[in-house]
């Protein structure tokens, strides 16, 4: 844990909750640093409703739980539809909302273990002048490149 804690300060460690995305990046070699497993506190699982009718969804709530929640379907049908369209039933059953929001870029340059990029210790962002069929490269001077999947046809059916 000491090593992992030190690695957080150098930004080489990654947190693992359900690990549905991280496992694939470990296999491909894109993620190689130390891992820190995090487990759910009870107050981070489930959906609370405020008096104003707004939902507060815990970070460890699974995607399938969000998709199946009747009140979410009524109040936030877009959210429910997005949750139901994500990945596959097996992944939705494990994957958490926090992991979905915090997952690494879907950029196919970043995810290709044979291509160097700023997010993997490389010196430039090949996505900037590259192929953007399914995404757009956003370059921030402070935070580096981010690639947003614009999602056409990306929903697993």
């Amino acid at each position, binding site marked *: 844990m000491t090593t992992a804690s030190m690695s957080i300060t150098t930004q080489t460690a990654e947190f693992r909750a359900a690990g549905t995305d991280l496992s694939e990046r470990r296999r491909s070699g894109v993620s190689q640093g130390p891992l820190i497993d995090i487990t759910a506190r009870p107050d981070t699982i489930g959906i609370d409703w405020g008096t104003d009718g707004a939902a507060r969804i815990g970070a460890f709530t699974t995607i399938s739980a969000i998709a199946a929640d009747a009140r979410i379907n009524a109040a936030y049908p877009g959210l429910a539809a997005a949750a139901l369209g994500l990945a596959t039933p097996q992944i939705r059953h494990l994957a958490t909302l926090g992991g979905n929001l915090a997952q690494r870029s879907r950029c196919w340059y970043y995810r*290709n273990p044979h291509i160097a990029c700023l997010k993997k210790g490389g010196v430039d962002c090949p996505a900037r002048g590259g192929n953007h069929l399914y995404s757009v490269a956003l370059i921030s001077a402070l935070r580096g490149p981010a690639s947003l999947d614009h999602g056409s046809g990306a929903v*697993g059916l």
Partner: protein
Amino acid sequence: MIQGIGYALYEAREVDPRTGDILTAGMEDYRIPGIADTPSIDVHFDEGGFDHVLGGSVGIGEVATVPTSPALANAIRNATGVRFTEIPIRPTA
């Protein structure tokens, strides 16, 4: 025929324009039809006309796959008035 739908609407090998690195390196990016992309399909077997083939048997793989993409292109032309001559035909094309 589902494979032909993939040819027509989804499948494309994308490369980096400078290095030639393959970018569609997995099934997330090399897209193929899923269940919800696949309509119900009526299949007609033309059982005659193969007497000249030794044994009377013919292959069905390419025969079913290849014509599907031009059939879809024709359907898109019929529906929209736009003639696409390259595949895959995407909403952004």
